[in-house]
C-alpha cells in the first residue's frame, strides 16, 4: 500500500492520543499469521462482523426464496409447479393424468415456518446486530477489539453450528418443523402431531438452543466492551447513537433470551422425558395420550416474554444505524440526541411488559389484557419521538441522496406506515377481528421485517468502504432501493385490505371460501411484486460481491466526512484498529455545520471559543 500523506486526524491522534503500548506486545497480532486463523477462526472483530454479514446474507437468500415459493402457491394455486421439482423433489406432488405438479400442503407449512425462523433469528438478529455490533462497537468507541475476542469468535461459531443444523433439517425425509416459527405446543411438543414435529422439531430446538448461546456470548461481549473499553474522553453521552442502540439491544437480548431458553428446556422435557408442562388431555388419531395437567398457554407466556423484546432486538440496531446515516448524509447534528437515547431506553423497558398483546385471543383474562393494551399503546410515544427527530434531522439539511441515505429515509417511511397499524393491533377489542389475519402479516413485515432490512441495507452501503476498502456501485444501489421500496409497499399494502376482510394467515389456499374469492387477483399482484423484489435483492448480492474486488476504491480515510472514530483508522484497518496510539475524544459525535465548518471530528480538541461556551453552562 502506498504511503498516504498524514492527515490532520493522524497528527491529532499522535499528539493527543493515548499510548497503550498495544503493538509492542504483538500478542494480539500473532494469531493472525496463518490464513485459517486470520479469516476462518478469527478473533478480530472486523472479520467476525464480515462472517456474520455473509452468513446472514446466505440465510436471507434462502429465507426470501422460500417466501417466493409459497407466494407462488398463494397467488397461482392452480398453476403447475412441476418446474420446481428439480429443487423440491417429492415435495412437489405430480398429478399423473394432467402432468401438473402442486406443492405438498405439509411442506407449505414447513416453508412458512422456516421463512419466519430464518428471517427473524438468523438474518435480522444475527445478521444485523451481529454484523454491526461487532464492526462498530470497538471502532466507534476507540477500542482495540472486543473485551473477549475468544468469546466473540465462539459466538459466531455457535451461530454457524445452529445454521448448519437448521439447514440439515431442511433435507429430512419428514421435512423441517412446520408448526409456525412460534413453535406453540402441542404441535411442537408431540413428535406424532405432524410430520415436521418429529426429527424436524428436534433439530429446530437444538439449532435454536445453540443460537441462544451465540446471542448470549455476543451480548456479554457487546455490553462489557461498551461499558469498559471506551477510549479516554468517550463518556456515555458522547457515544454515537449506533452504540447506544447496540448496547440496549444487547441488554434486552441478555434478559429475554434466557427466558426463551427456559421455555425450550421445558419443551425438550415434554418431548423427550415424558413430562407434561405444556400438555393436557390430548387425543391424537382417536387415542388419548396420558399427558395431564399441563398448559400450552404457559409456553406462549415464556415464548412471548422473549418474542416481544425480540422485535426490538431486531429494530433497535436498525434505528441506531439510521440515526447515524441520516445525520452524516444530511450534514446536520441529529435532532434531540438525548431524547433519542431516552426513547431507546423507554422502548427497551416497555418491551418487557407488553408480551401478552400477542395472546389476546388465547384466553387470557380480558381485564388483564387492558393493562397490556395501555402499555402497548404507550410504546407509540417514544417511537413517535424518534420519528419526529429523524424528520427534523432531515429538515433543512444539505442532503446527499446516495444509497445509504435513501435506505435510511425509506426506513423512516416504513417505520411510520408499519407502526401506525400497530396501534390498531394493540387494541384487544380490534384484535378480535384482526388476529391471525393478513393484517398482522402486513403490520409486522413492514415495521419489523422490511424496515429492519432497510436499516441493514443503509448500514451496509454506508460502512461498506470501512469493511472492504471500496464502494458499492451507486447506480445499482439506487435501482435496488427504488425496486425494493416500491415493491415492498406493493406486497404488503394490499395485505392490509385482505386482512381486514378476515382472510386468515398461513392457509394453503382459499378457493374453499366464497368470501375470499374476490382477492384472487390481489393475491396474484402480491406474488408478482414479491418475485420482482426478490430479483432486486439478487441485484444487491451481485453488487455486493462484485464491489469487493471491482468497486471504486476508497482513497481517503473519511469519504463521507463523518465525525466518528471509525473513519480515523487506516483504509486497510489492521489488527488493533489504530496503528499507533488510540485517539482520545473531546466532543460528541454530531458536530456537523458548527462554527462554519462542515464537520468536526470527535478527536479534535475544543477551540477556545467552545471552551468558553462550555464553562458558561
Amino acid at each position, binding site marked *: 500500500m502506498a504511503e498516504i500523506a498524514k492527515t490532520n486526524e493522524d497528527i491529532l491522534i499522535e499528539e493527543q492520543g*493515548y499510548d*497503550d*503500548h*498495544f503493538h509492542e*506486545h504483538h*500478542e*494480539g497480532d500473532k494469531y493472525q499469521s496463518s490464513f485459517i486463523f486470520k479469516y476462518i477462526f478469527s478473533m478480530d472483530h472486523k472479520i467476525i462482523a464480515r462472517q456474520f454479514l455473509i452468513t446472514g446474507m446466505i440465510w436471507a437468500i434462502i429465507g426470501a426464496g422460500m417466501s417466493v415459493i409459497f407466494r407462488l402457491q398463494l397467488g397461482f394455486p392452480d398453476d403447475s409447479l412441476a418446474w420446481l421439482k428439480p429443487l423440491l423433489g417429492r415435495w412437489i406432488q405430480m398429478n399423473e393424468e394432467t402432468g401438473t405438479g402442486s406443492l405438498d400442503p405439509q411442506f407449505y407449512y414447513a416453508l412458512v415456518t422456516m421463512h419466519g425462523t430464518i428471517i427473524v433469528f438468523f438474518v435480522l438478529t444475527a445478521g444485523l446486530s451481529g454484523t454491526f455490533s461487532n464492526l462498530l462497537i470497538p471502532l466507534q468507541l476507540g*477500542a*482495540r477489539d472486543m*473485551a*473477549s475476542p475468544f*468469546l466473540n469468535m465462539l459466538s459466531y461459531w455457535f451461530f454457524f453450528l445452529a445454521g448448519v443444523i437448521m439447514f440439515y433439517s431442511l433435507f429430512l425425509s419428514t421435512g423441517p418443523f412446520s408448526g409456525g416459527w412460534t413453535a406453540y405446543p402441542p404441535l411442537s411438543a408431540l413428535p406424532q402431531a405432524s410430520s415436521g414435529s418429529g426429527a424436524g422439531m428436534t433439530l429446530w430446538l437444538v439449532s435454536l438452543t445453540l443460537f441462544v448461546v451465540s446471542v*448470549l456470548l455476543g*451480548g*456479554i*461481549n457487546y*455490553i*462489557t*466492551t461498551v*461499558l*469498559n*473499553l*471506551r*477510549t*479516554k474522553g468517550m*463518556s456515555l453521552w458522547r457515544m454515537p447513537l449506533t452504540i447506544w442502540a447496540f448496547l440496549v439491544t444487547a441488554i434486552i437480548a*441478555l*434478559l*429475554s*433470551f*434466557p*427466558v426463551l*431458553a*427456559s*421455555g425450550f*428446556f*421445558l419443551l425438550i*422435557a415434554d418431548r423427550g*422425558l*415424558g*413430562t*407434561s*408442562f405444556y400438555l393436557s388431555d390430548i387425543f391424537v388419531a382417536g387415542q388419548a395420550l396420558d399427558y395431564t*395437567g*399441563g*398448559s400450552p398457554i*404457559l409456553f406462549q*407466556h*415464556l415464548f412471548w*416474554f422473549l418474542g416481544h423484546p425480540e422485535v426490538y432486538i431486531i429494530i433497535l440496531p436498525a434505528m441506531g444505524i439510521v440515526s447515524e446515516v441520516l445525520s452524516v448524509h444530511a450534514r446536520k447534528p441529529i435532532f434531540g440526541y438525548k431524547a433519542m437515547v431516552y426513547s431507546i431506553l423507554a422502548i427497551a423497558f416497555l418491551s418487557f411488559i407488553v408480551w401478552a398483546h400477542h395472546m389476546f385471543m388465547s384466553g387470557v383474562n380480558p381485564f388483564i389484557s387492558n393493562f397490556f393494551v395501555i402499555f402497548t399503546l404507550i410504546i407509540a410515544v417514544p417511537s413517535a419521538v424518534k420519528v419526529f427527530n429523524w424528520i427534523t434531522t432531515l429538515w433543512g439539511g444539505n442532503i446527499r441522496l446516495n444509497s445509504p441515505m435513501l435506505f435510511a429515509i425509506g426506513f423512516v417511511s416504513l417505520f411510520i406506515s408499519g407502526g401506525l397499524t400497530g396501534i390498531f393491533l394493540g387494541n384487544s377489542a380490534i384484535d378480535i377481528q384482526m388476529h391471525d389475519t393478513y393484517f398482522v402479516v402486513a403490520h409486522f413485515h413492514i415495521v419489523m421485517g422490511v424496515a429492519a432490512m432497510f436499516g441493514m441495507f443503509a448500514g451496509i452501503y454506508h460502512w461498506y468502504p470501512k469493511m472492504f476498502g471500496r464502494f458499492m456501485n451507486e447506480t445499482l444501489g439506487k435501482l435496488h432501493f427504488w425496486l425494493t421500496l416500491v415493491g415492498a409497499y406493493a406486497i404488503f399494502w394490499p395485505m392490509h385490505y385482505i386482512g381486514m376482510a378476515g382472510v386468515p394467515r398461513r392457509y394453503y389456499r382459499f378457493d374453499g371460501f366464497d368470501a375470499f374469492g374476490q382477492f384472487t387477483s390481489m393475491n396474484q399482484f402480491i406474488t408478482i411484486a414479491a418475485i420482482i423484489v426478490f430479483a432486486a435483492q439478487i441485484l444487491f448480492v451481485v453488487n455486493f460481491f462484485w464491489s469487493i474486488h471491482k468497486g471504486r476504491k476508497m482513497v481517503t480515510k473519511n469519504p463521507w466526512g463523518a465525525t466518528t472514530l471509525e473513519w480515523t483508522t487506516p483504509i486497510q484497518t489492521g489488527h488493533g484498529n489504530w496503528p499507533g496510539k488510540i485517539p482520545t475524544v473531546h466532543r460528541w459525535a454530531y458536530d456537523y455545520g458548527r462554527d462554519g465548518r462542515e464537520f468536526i471530528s470527535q478527536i479534535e480538541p475544543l477551540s477556545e471559543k467552545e471552551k468558553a461556551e462550555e464553562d458558561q453552562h
Partner: protein
Amino acid sequence: MDTLTQRYEHTTNKIHPLKFALWIGMASITMMFGAFTSAYVVRQSAGNWLEFELPHIFFLSTIVLLVSSLILHSSYKSFLSGKESKYKLLLLTSFVFGLAFLVLQYQGWMALFSIGIDLKGNPSGSFLYVLTGIHALHVLGGLAALVVGILTAYTRKYKVTERRKINFELTLQYWHFVDILWVYLLIFLYISR
C-alpha cells in the same frame, strides 16, 4: 492477555472486563431461573397441583455447598498470602465438597422417586426435577472451572500473577453465584409448597 489489562486501565470503569462479563452472564442465568420459577408459580396457581414434602437431604446438600463455597474462599485468601500448600489443599477440598453436593442431589432425586414423585407425573414433581437438574448442570460448569484451577495449581509453579488472580476470582465468584442460586431455589421451593 496483558494487553487486555492495559486496554482498560485508562477507562473510568475500573472493573476488570472479564469479571464484568461474568456478572452479565450471571444476570442472564438469573433471568432463566426467574422464568422457571415464575412458570412454576403460574402453573401452581392453576390448580391440580400435587403437594409433597421436600426430601430432607436437600437441606444437607445446601450445607455442603455452602461449606464448599467458604473453603474456596479461604483457599483464595491463602493463594494471595503465599500459603501454597494450604491453597492447594483447600482448592481440592472445595472441589470434593462440590462433587459431594451433586451426589447428595442425586440422593435427593432418588428419595423423591421412592415416595412416588416421578418426573413424568404431576407437573409439581416435574418442575422440581427440572429446576434442580438445570441447577446441577450449572454446578457442573463450576466444577469444570475448579478442575482447570486444580490443574493449574498442581502443574504450574506457584506464583501470584495478575492473570492467575483474575482467573481464580472468576471461578470463586461463579461458585458463590451457583451457591446463592441454590439457596434461592431451596427457599422458593420451601415456601411455595
